[in-house]
């Protein structure tokens, strides 16, 4: 692993956001998985990372949060404010994760511990955050915080949810809980990796609205990773289009959709529009 040097930061010392510079990820046999990816995400900005299978979008998410498998090699730089993630020790990353950046994955069952009550799983990041802030939460204050966190992701009956195990609630409810746990550390950056892909469309729509509302309300930065252009365009203002580990195009959502420059972006949009048009055939026979 190596870390590239950076020039003086022009955006001020503390709130410069996320800077990914020349991120390169190689597999165990040296194969290029992500090739020289660079982009920046300002505090409070909502950006999409669009790509199909094998594009390297999920690896990029894992690299940003410092969770890449050990047999992959990372080069380049990933900075959040003043923290360099590439090459950082597990110990320093651990205190950084959750507090600065948190992730919601596609499958909430993999993010939740099946043997632990949801209340306990939510209590961990809430207490961690309180310790980092130098406050001590008593039993009642913790209970109030947990209730508030459950209500914030619009789950009914917090008492029951907090006592439940993951398998006792529905898929949509599990993803809401995964979101609550990610938000409990009050991160400045939320990374969402295909957070609605495994859900029914009506649930997907509700979770997108919820995510969008919470991110705006808290002025969090959002990196939203998805293969689905329509979903990305609902929550992001800007996006990077990835293909086979290479960023082929970057721009505002409006420009990408109305005037795509790269042939691959054009193909993605044409494919999505073809399915939308089929639905229109239903509405205008």
């Amino acid at each position, binding site marked *: 692993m190596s870390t590239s040097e950076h020039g003086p930061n022009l955006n001020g010392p503390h709130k410069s956001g996320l800077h990914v510079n020349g991120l390169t990820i190689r597999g165990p046999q040296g194969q290029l998985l992500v090739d020289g990816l660079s982009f920046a995400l300002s505090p409070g900005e909502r950006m999409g990372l669009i790509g*199909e*299978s094998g594009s390297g979008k999920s690896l990029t998410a894992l690299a940003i949060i410092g969770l890449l498998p050990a047999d992959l090699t990372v080069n380049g730089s990933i900075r959040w404010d003043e923290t360099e993630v590439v090459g950082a020790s597990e110990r320093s990353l651990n205190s950084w994760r959750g507090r600065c950046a948190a992730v919601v994955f596609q499958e909430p069952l993999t993010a939740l511990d099946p043997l632990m009550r949801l209340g306990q799983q939510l209590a961990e990041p809430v207490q961690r955050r309180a310790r980092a802030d130098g406050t001590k939460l008593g039993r009642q204050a913790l209970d109030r915080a947990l209730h508030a966190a459950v209500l914030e992701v619009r789950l009914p009956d917090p008492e029951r949810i907090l006592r439940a195990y993951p398998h006792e609630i529905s*898929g949509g409810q599990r993803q809401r809980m995964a979101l609550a746990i990610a938000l409990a550390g009050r991160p400045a950056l939320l990374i969402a990796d295909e957070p609605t892909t495994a859900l*029914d*469309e*009506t*649930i*997907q*729509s509700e979770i*997108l609205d919820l995510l969008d509302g919470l991110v705006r309300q808290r002025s969090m930065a959002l990196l939203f990773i998805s*293969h*689905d*252009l*329509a*979903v990305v*365009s*609902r929550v992001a203002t800007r996006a990077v289009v990835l293909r086979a580990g290479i960023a082929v195009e970057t721009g505002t959502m409006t420009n990408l*959709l*109305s005037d795509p420059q790269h042939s691959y972006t054009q*193909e*993605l*949009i*044409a*494919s*999505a*529009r*073809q*399915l*939308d048009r*089929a*639905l229109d*055939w*239903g*509405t*205008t*026979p």
Partner: protein
Amino acid sequence: MTALLEAHAVGYAYRTGQPVLHDVSFAINAGESLGLVGESGAGKTTLLKLLLGLAVPSTGEIFSQGARFDARNRAQLRSYRRLTQAVFQDPYSSLDPRQSVEQIIAEPLRSLGIARGRVELKGLVAAALLAVGLPPNAATRYPHEFSGGQRQRIAIARAIVPNPRVLLADEPVSALDVTTRVKIIDLLADLSSGGTPERPPMTLVLVSHDLGVVASLCQNIVVLESGRIAEQGPTHSVLSAPQHAYTQRLLASVTRLPGA
């Protein structure tokens, strides 16, 4: 006209549980592809199992070309298999990794006793590969050498090789990237509309949660909610003027690209 397939007041309960299908009736006529839509738990997959003959309705009946179909009758099941073939969601788990593509595609010909002799068999496999847009040399290769979209083409070739009248497809494009998805949809549209002298057009029975996919391929639609039919009719009228609140909610929740 006698329907190709007909479900008449079909209900189904798994041995240990509550009924998951209630009073489901619809008819599938030749050339009128049908989409079965609904969310997870709606009963789509159970209904497809009944249409595949992998389970028998607890109540009601299924008719195949006017005759009552009993999947427990082996002779009936055999002739039913010549009429209907299936394609599944996951092209990674539905193809045997140890068989060559030729062996995979030839399997229905062997099990249904259709092809006699190696030459005829090879010819039918080659024709099926051509029909799904794969090169002839794909026959000697193995599934792991192909991408997800190509694997789904192999699965479709296996399904169409005995010239079925009905193709039962369970979320056939859900596991594919969107650029691949539209190509497979185009292929299924060709196979279900065109048809050649050697290969008559097939009628699709498509299970999908994706209204865009169903609208692309199916003349008729059945909307399932919690094991019951919420609404059914021609796709364009159901989608343009959904009568049932559930259909309206499904349609409103589709995330679409802004602008046009």
